[in-house]
Structure formats: structure tokens, C-alpha cells
């Protein structure tokens, strides 16, 4: 606006000036006695084309700026072309910094920072409890029903229930689909509309209401050919008919664990009353405007207390309602890894900036003489500053552009590293805002560090600098700043490398951890039984038994086993009592152990050693004595120094009647520990029970040990399963080796990224040291020549230069060590079997850095050592 105003004023003034000129001319004509009616015409004729004069006069005030800019850019481009080494290094440094920064920041943003993509995201809360025995955020159906009646707090209160994989028929082969059951209020609460069709209606959330489902966009495309006529179609799910009412966009992701890539959404049919004690639901609510979470908690807690009086075993009297913003619920689960990466990115960006600044300072020093000559032949101060600034900004722009390309090319790779366990908010895409910000940082670096030498050049005393520049022997001036920049580059690189080294060390240790089972040649897949068809424990047991037999009979299958969950994936744990326990156990110490339902073949297929007693037999069924096998940790923690065999445990007894098994189990064997949760966690106490004595089992992971490649065995398995029941789908097919690898996904992600960052940092810091030493060797050619002439040996000169480099690197390493000592402590939670101050790692990284910098100094040092005194002294 102001620009146009000023331009308008200038135009008006010129017009006024011309008008006045014409008036004066007319006046002169009148005074000469000419006829007033002709005067006006005469004055105009004399003046010429008014508009043209106006335009040409106006043009004196513009155009020059643009012209100078073009000139500067042309000249700058020529300078960059003429120094390809300098340009390449600067542009590459910037490109790496900006590219890596944008890629990683985009991901961290999606995982940690970006607001949830819902209209009232700031009012959406996860509603749970504190102070309960089992802990966590999930609630039971009675609690939800009670809270739902509180009308003054929430606009919408919704329930999300993880349902097992559902078997879907009616779309080709029988399929197992990832599904989620949600109450009809969920979509209004989030403010989400389906991409096609409609969301659930209130009636569909009532018992006996219409049975409907919504499909995920990806599933709709892959299995229904993205056909819009899918609306209204009926599909068979677990033997019941459901009508498709909508398709949910691919971009919609419910940011809770286990809700990624959901293929089918079902409405929960909420009963009016429930006594179901299991905490299997997550509650999400949209607060009414103006209601604070504290007010909501105050309103919900009394309802919890009422329930606690009604069901004292299910809900403790001390339990309180607790609201967590859904955003925080998501980022809390991401842990500290994203922050670590963010820190690493910031460090890398700092190193990049320091390096570019250094390069620009070096350029400016070399061109001191050029600048002096320019000033001497009349270039204004402003003109010189602008010239240098244009050059450095041009460089930054080039770097930024390359950075965008680097980001674009490596983005998919970085995203592929993101482990599935990290929750994300919406889709992970290259973030334009982040890209713009990185670009801006690079521009700013160019501007600031282009300006420092530019101001310097403009301020300098012409005579002095001409003389000084003529004899390039002094290293005074900005030398200290350059050294400081290189030292900080080395220090920053050291911290990054230290972090990377600690992670690599942890990762290597994890890879050496024995999981306790043999994962080679093991194929695994899931079979889930539809409850409509397999409605009794006997039918389910029989199917599993027949399937096991079918798989075992296949040529190339060595052993077959099954379990309710696979090792390294975590799973349920339950409390138990020791019947007639000799140990007195205080009320607070919970007897808690992982709960695994397995087949008799499980231990042999995984090659888990039996330490004591026996494993399961086919004869252990619901008619015989209830039995359990426990692992070494369980035996040692609850029966220290004793033989647990023959003792009895009662599983679920401390958790209330609905959890309690009908009778105690006798411990018949002890097996070696395996890692159940992850390789990084020590083995938990684990109790195994045979599936034939676990009537509720309807989902099983099979494990088949093959003689050949397990992946090639899938077709035989598929046909064997078809022989048992053609309607049963096979899902989650993978090898046990992949399960082990996937369990390390988080570790691999941050280790790989940090290692890459460390490598880039090392590279850039090395360039920095090389650049500075190389520059100073050039500056000191004269001095070296004198030294050589006075009898200095090449070895001495070599040492002189290398010592300079080692001093720089050494200072950087020392400062970096102090910083690393302070900073790596923050990583403690991300390490395994490695102390954050591991002396070997510290020493190793420090030595590596010093060695690399010495190597970087070697080339300029050799140049110094080979200086021919005659040439050097004539060099001026």
C-alpha cells in the first residue's frame, strides 16, 4: 500500500511540475500580447508530448534497482561458476541440512506436534480413570453407561472398542478384516464425515438396531474396486448380515493405539444396562464449550464412586475420572524418540549454518583485494554490500533448492523407517510449512554471514587493505570468528556422533540378545474362528487340533504349535493366587504373570527348553486336571529355592468373580525364559496353559517350523487350511524372523536416522576443518617459503599445519565432550545395556573425530610442505 502511495505522490508531483511549466509558458505568451484562446495550444506545442515527458521523467526514479539486481545476480552466478569447489561444498552442505531437516521435521510434526485434524481438536479428550488397580486408560461398559447419562459436560461422549479380527465373506475369498467397533457418537464428536455415504445413525447404536458397517477407503479400493454402488450392499461378517452405509476417507485416522488402517467400522450396540467388568473400551468425549477438564472430572468422579459401591470388586473406591487431551494422549505414547530426532536435526542445522558461514567468511577474506579495488574505482559502500549479499543469498537459494530435492528423494526412505508402533496424526507428507521454514533459515544464514564480510569490506581502509591484500600473509581480521565456527562445528558433530554411537551400541547389544527361542525357518499366521459357527469350546478345540494335524502332515513341516499371542508382541497378564501358599504375601504385592494359551507343540516348535517336569499333552483337556507350565522367572520369583511342581495357582482369583477361572491349576513343568514383551525388556514371569483348557480361545497364531524357506510354504498351508474349513481366512502371514525384526522397529528407526545425521555431521565438520586449514596454508605460502628458505624441513612444515588442525579439532572435541556429557544423559531411556556416559564410546568417538580431522589437514599440510621457497617468495 505504501509503495503505491509513494509512487502516486511522485507521479502527482511530476504532473504538477509540468502543469506549472505550461501555465508559466501560457503567461509568457499572454504577456507577449497573444490571443488567450491560442495561448494554451501554443504552450502545449512548445512543450511537446506531455505524457511522454512525464513518463521519461518518472522513469529516472525506477529501474535502476532492478537493473543492479540483475547485474549482481549475473556477476554472482559467474563467481559461483568460477569457484566450483566452494559452490559445490556450500550448496551440498545446505542441501543436506535443509533436506534432512524437512524430512525429519515433517514426521516429528505428524507424530508429536501437529494438532489433530478435527474441527474442535482442543475440546476432544480421552476420558479415563486414575487410581485403579489394573491401570491405564481403558474403561468398562458400565462406567461408560453411567458417564453417558451426565448431560452437562460433554457435547458427545463416544466409546471405542477394539474388536478382534472379523471374518468377512461376500467379497471374493473369505477375509479377515481389521475392524473397530465405535459408538455412533464418535463421528459427531470428532466432526468427521464419511467420504461416501453416511455415518452411523443413533438407531444403529441400540440393541436390535439395523446391522450396518462402514468401510475404510483403502479396503474399499482394494476389495470393492472403489465402486460407489457398494453402498447398500450386504456383507456377511461372522455369519451375520451387515449393510454397507459409508466409506471413510483414507485421511481419517483415529489417533489411538491399534486403529491404523482399519478396514471395517461397526457401530457398538449399547445396552441400557451392563455388568460386564472387562476394561476393553476407550472413551473419547467432546467437551461442551466453556467446560474445563477439571469440571468434567469433578462431575464424573461421583458417578464412578456410585459404581464402586455397586461393584466393589470391579471399581476401587479411590478411583477418579481423569481427562487427557487426545493430542497429548497421542504424543505421550510416541515417547521421547521424536524429541531426540528433533534435537539431532537442530544440531545438524546448526552445523550446516556454521559451515556455510565459515565458507562465506573465507570467500570474503580471499576477495578482500577485489573489494578494495572495486571501492577504489568508485563502487559505493551500499553497492559492494549488495553485491556480496546477492552472492550469498544466491548460494543459499541454490542450497535450498537442492535441499528440497534431497528431501523429496529421501522422504519415502525416512517414512519407511517409521515403525508401525508410532502413532501418527493424519498422513505423513512433506510439510510445506516446514520446507519454507528450512528454506528461510538457509536464506537467513546466507544473508547474515554474507553481510558480516560485506560490512567489513565496505568499512575497510582502502589504502591499508590494498597493501595488505597485495601481500596475502596476514591471517588477522575475522580469523578468530572462523576458528570459533570450526571449533563449534566439531563440538556439535561430536555430540551428534556420540548420540549416534550410543544408539548404535545399544542396537548392537539388542541384536545380540538371545530371545530364548529359535526364530529361523518359522512361519507364522493367524486363524480366527467366527463365533457364530464355532459357538462351543469343543468345536473350537477340535478345529485347532485338526488344523494342527493338517499342517503337521505337510511334507516339509517339522513341528507345529499355536498360541494366543506371538513372543515379542506383548500380551495379556493376569493376577493369580497361590493355593495354600507357603509364602505370606502382603496385600500390595500383586501376584502377576503373563498369560499365554498354547498348544502342546508350542515349546518344541520354538525350541524352548523344558527345565523341569513335563510340557502339555493332548490328554490335558477340560475333562482332566487343570494344569499350567511356568517359566524360570516365575518359578524363581514366587517359589525361590523351591520346586514349584505340584503347587497350585488360581488364575484371576484376585480380580473378581468374572475373571476367576473355575478351578486352581497344578504346575506340571518349568521352561526356560523367553522375551515376551521386547528384546530390551528382561523376561517376565509367564504362565502357560493348554488351549484345550481355555474355553474362550477363538483366535490363534500358528507357528510352523519348515525344512526349507518358510515364505515358500504359504500356498501349502493355505490349501491345508482349506481342507479343514474352506471358509476360514488366513491372515497376518509372516516369518518369526520378521516378527523379531519388527519388534526392533523403533530402535532401528532412531538408530538409523541418528547414525545418518552423525555421518553427515562428521562430513560437514571435516569439510569445515579442511577449509580453514587449507585457506590458512594458502595465506601463509609466503611464510612457508621463508621458513623453507631458512632451512625448515618438509616434515616440520607438515607438522606445523597438522598441529594447527589438531588444535582446532582438539578444542572442539573437548567442548563437545562436556556438552555430550550433559546431553546424552537425556537419552538414558532410549539406550539398552549402555550407559549414557560409556567411556569407551566417548573415547572412540573423540579419537575418530581427531583422526578424521588430521586426515583432512593432511592434504593442505602436504601442499605446505612442498612449497618451493623461490616460487613462494615470488608469489606476491
Amino acid at each position, binding site marked *: 500500500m505504501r509503495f503505491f502511495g509513494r509512487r502516486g505522490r511522485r507521479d502527482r508531483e511530476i504532473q504538477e511540475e509540468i502543469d506549472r511549466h505550461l501555465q*508559466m509558458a501560457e503567461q509568457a505568451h499572454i504577456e507577449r500580447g497573444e490571443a488567450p484562446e491560442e495561448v494554451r495550444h501554443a504552450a502545449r506545442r512548445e512543450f*511537446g508530448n506531455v505524457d511522454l515527458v512525464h513518463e521519461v521523467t518518472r522513469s*529516472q526514479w525506477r529501474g535502476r534497482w532492478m537493473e543492479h539486481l540483475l547485474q549482481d545476480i549475473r556477476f554472482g552466478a559467474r563467481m559461483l561458476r568460477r569457484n566450483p569447489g566452494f559452490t559445490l561444498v556450500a550448496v551440498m552442505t545446505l542441501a543436506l541440512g535443509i533436506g534432512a531437516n524437512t524430512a525429519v521435521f515433517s514426521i516429528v510434526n505428524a507424530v508429536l506436534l501437529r494438532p489433530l485434524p478435527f474441527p474442535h481438536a482442543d475440546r476432544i479428550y480421552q476420558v479415563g480413570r486414575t487410581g485403579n488397580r489394573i491401570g491405564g486408560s481403558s474403561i468398562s461398559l458400565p462406567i461408560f453407561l453411567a458417564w453417558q447419562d451426565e448431560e452437562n459436560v460433554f457435547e458427545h461422549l463416544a466409546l471405542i472398542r477394539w474388536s478382534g479380527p472379523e471374518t468377512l465373506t461376500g467379497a471374493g475369498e473369505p477375509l479377515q478384516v481389521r475392524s473397530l467397533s465405535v459408538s455412533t457418537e464418535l463421528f459427531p464428536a470428532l466432526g468427521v464425515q464419511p467420504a461416501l455415504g453416511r455415518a452411523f445413525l443413533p438407531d444403529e447404536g441400540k440393541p436390535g438396531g439395523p446391522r450396518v458397517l462402514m468401510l475404510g477407503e483403502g479396503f474399499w479400493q482394494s476389495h470393492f474396486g472403489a465402486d460407489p454402488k457398494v453402498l447398500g450392499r450386504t456383507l456377511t461378517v461372522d455369519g451375520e448380515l451387515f449393510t454397507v452405509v459409508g466409506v471413510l476417507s483414507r485421511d481419517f485416522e483415529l489417533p489411538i493405539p491399534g486403529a491404523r488402517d482399519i478396514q471395517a467400522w461397526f457401530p457398538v450396540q449399547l445396552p441400557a444396562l451392563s455388568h460386564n467388568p472387562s476394561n476393553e473400551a476407550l472413551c473419547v468425549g467432546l467437551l461442551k464449550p466453556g467446560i474445563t477438564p477439571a469440571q468434567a472430572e469433578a462431575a464424573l468422579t461421583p458417578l464412578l464412586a456410585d459404581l464402586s459401591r455397586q461393584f466393589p470388586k470391579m471399581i476401587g473406591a479411590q478411583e477418579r475420572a481423569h481427562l487427557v487431551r487426545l493430542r497429548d494422549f497421542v504424543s505421550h505414547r510416541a515417547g521421547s524418540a521424536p524429541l531426540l530426532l528433533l534435537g539431532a536435526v537442530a544440531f545438524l542445522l546448526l552445523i550446516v549454518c556454521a559451515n556455510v558461514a565459515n565458507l562465506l567468511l573465507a570467500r570474503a577474506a580471499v576477495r578482500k583485494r577485489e573489494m578494495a579495488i572495486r571501492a577504489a574505482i568508485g563502487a559505493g559502500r551500499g553497492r559492494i554490500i549488495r553485491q556480496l549479499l546477492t552472492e550469498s543469498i544466491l548460494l543459499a537459494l541454490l542450497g535450498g533448492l537442492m535441499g528440497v530435492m534431497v528431501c523429496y528423494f529421501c522422504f519415502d526412505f525416512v517414512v519407511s523407517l517409521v515403525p508401525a508402533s508410532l502413532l501418527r496424526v493424519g498422513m505423513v507428507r512433506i510439510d510445506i510449512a516446514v520446507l519454507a521454514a528450512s528454506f528461510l533459515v538457509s536464506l537467513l544464514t546466507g544473508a547474515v554471514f554474507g553481510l558480516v564480510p560485506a560490512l567489513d569490506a565496505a568499512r575497510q581502509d582502502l589504502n591499508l587493505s590494498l597493501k595488505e591484500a597485495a601481500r596475502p600473509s596476514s591471517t588477522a581480521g575475522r580469523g578468530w570468528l572462523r576458528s570459533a565456527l570450526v571449533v563449534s562445528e566439531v563440538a556439535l558433530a561430536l555430540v551428534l556422533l556420540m548420540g549416534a554411537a550410543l544408539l548404535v551400541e545399544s542396537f548392537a547389544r539388542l541384536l545380540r540378545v538371545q530371545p530364548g527361542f529359535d526364530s529361523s525357518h518359522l512361519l507364522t499366521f493367524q486363524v480366527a474362528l467366527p463365533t457364530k459357527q464355532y459357538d462351543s469350546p469343543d468345536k473350537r478345540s477340535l478345529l485347532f487340533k485338526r488344523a494342527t494335524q493338517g499342517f503337521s502332515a505337510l511334507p516339509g513341516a517339522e513341528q507345529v504349535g499355536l498360541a494366543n499371542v506371538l513372543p515379542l508382541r506383548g500380551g495379556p497378564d493376569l493376577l493369580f493366587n497361590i493355593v495354600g501358599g507357603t509364602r505370606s504375601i502382603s496385600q500390595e504385592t500383586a501376584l502377576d504373570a503373563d498369560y499365554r494359551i498354547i498348544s502342546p507343540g508350542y515349546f518344541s516348535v520354538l525350541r524352548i527348553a523344558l527345565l523341569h517336569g513335563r510340557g502339555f499333552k493332548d490328554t490335558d483337556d477340560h475333562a482332566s486336571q487343570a494344569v499350567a507350565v511356568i517359566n524360570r522367572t516365575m518359578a524363581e520369583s514366587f517359589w525361590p529355592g523351591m520346586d514349584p511342581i505340584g503347587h497350585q495357582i488360581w488364575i484371576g482369583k484376585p480380580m473378581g468373580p468374572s475373571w476367576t477361572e473355575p478351578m486352581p491349576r497344578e504346575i506340571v513343568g518349568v521352561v526356560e525364559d523367553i522375551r515376551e514383551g521386547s528384546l530390551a525388556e528382561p523376561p517376565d514371569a509367564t504362565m502357560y496353559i493348554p488351549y484345550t483348557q481355555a474355553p474362550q480361545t477363538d483366535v490363534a497364531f500358528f507357528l510352523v517350523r519348515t525344512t526349507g524357506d518358510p515364505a515358500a510354504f504359504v500356498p501349502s498351508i493355505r490349501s491345508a487350511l482349506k481342507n479343514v474349513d474352506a471358509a476360514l481366512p488366513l491372515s497376518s502371514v509372516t516369518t518369526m524372523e520378521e516378527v523379531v525384526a519388527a519388534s526392533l522397529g523403533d530402535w532401528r528407526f532412531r538408530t538409523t536416522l541418528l547414525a545418518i545425521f552423525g555421518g553427515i555431521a562428521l562430513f560437514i565438520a571435516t569439510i569445515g576443518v579442511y577449509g580453514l586449514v587449507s585457506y590458512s596454508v594458502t595465506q601463509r605460502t609466503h611464510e612457508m617459503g621463508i621458513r623453507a628458505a631458512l632451512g625448515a624441513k618438509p616434515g616440520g612444515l607438515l607438522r606445523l599445519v597438522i598441529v594447527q588442525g589438531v588444535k582446532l579439532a582438539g578444542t572442539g572435541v573437548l567442548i563437545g565432550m562436556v556438552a555430550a556429557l550433559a546431553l546424552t544423559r537425556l537419552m538414558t531411556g532410549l539406550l539398552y545395556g549402555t550407559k549414557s556416559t560409556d567411556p569407551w564410546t566417548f573415547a572412540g568417538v573423540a579419537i575418530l573425530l581427531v583422526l578424521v580431522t588430521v586426515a583432512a589437514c593432511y592434504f593442505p599440510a602436504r601442499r605446505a610442505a612442498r612449497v618451493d621457497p623461490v616460487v613462494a617468495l615470488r608469489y606476491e
Partner: protein
Amino acid sequence: MKGHYQNRIELLQGTLDLIILQTLQWGPQHGYGICQAIRANSGEVLQVDTGSLYPALHRLERQKWIGADWKVSENKQRVRVYRLTAKGKKQLLAERSRWAQLQEAIAGILSPAKGESEA
């Protein structure tokens, strides 16, 4: 480089600047006045084209060799009046000596014999 201005006044390149600066040495003057003064002082020989004068005035103003102020004339109208600045005075001296050199050189070319005898 100097756009339209350059094309239009090729003949007077440099000279018009000198004439304007010289004219302003006698005191501040507006565009029309400068026009009249040049005509009068050159014995009605030089007729400055306004299409050259005004761009030149504004260019000199931008170079800070002359300054411009709005003054109120006798008949209560705003008039843009130009004056010589200190920088302009220095420039005038430089241009005058350059002009003298040029004059001498041209004179030498035009009448070589006379030039030699004078030297």
C-alpha cells in the same frame, strides 16, 4: 543503462548536466526558469527540449547533485524549485574542467596548426 533518456539526448550527453548545474549556480530556479535562462544565456541559440530537461533534472536530483523544494510563487501556486547542492558544486567543477579539456581537444582536431603553435 539509462533507458529512454540516453536514446533521446545522445547529442547532449554530459553537456546538458553541465549546463543545468551552471545555470543553477546563479541561484535556485524552477524548470521553466531554467529553460528560459539557458535560452537567454546562449543568445537564443540553445533551445532545451523539455523532454530532455525534466528527466535530466530528476536524474541529477536522484544523484544528489541538485536538490528540489516546493516553494509558493507570487500567484500562490506550488512551484518545484531546484538548487545546487555541495556535491553538485564539486561535480560542476569536475564537469567544467572536463569540458575545458574536451574543448581544447576538439579545437586541436579542428585546427591542428593553431593548436600546435599555441602549445
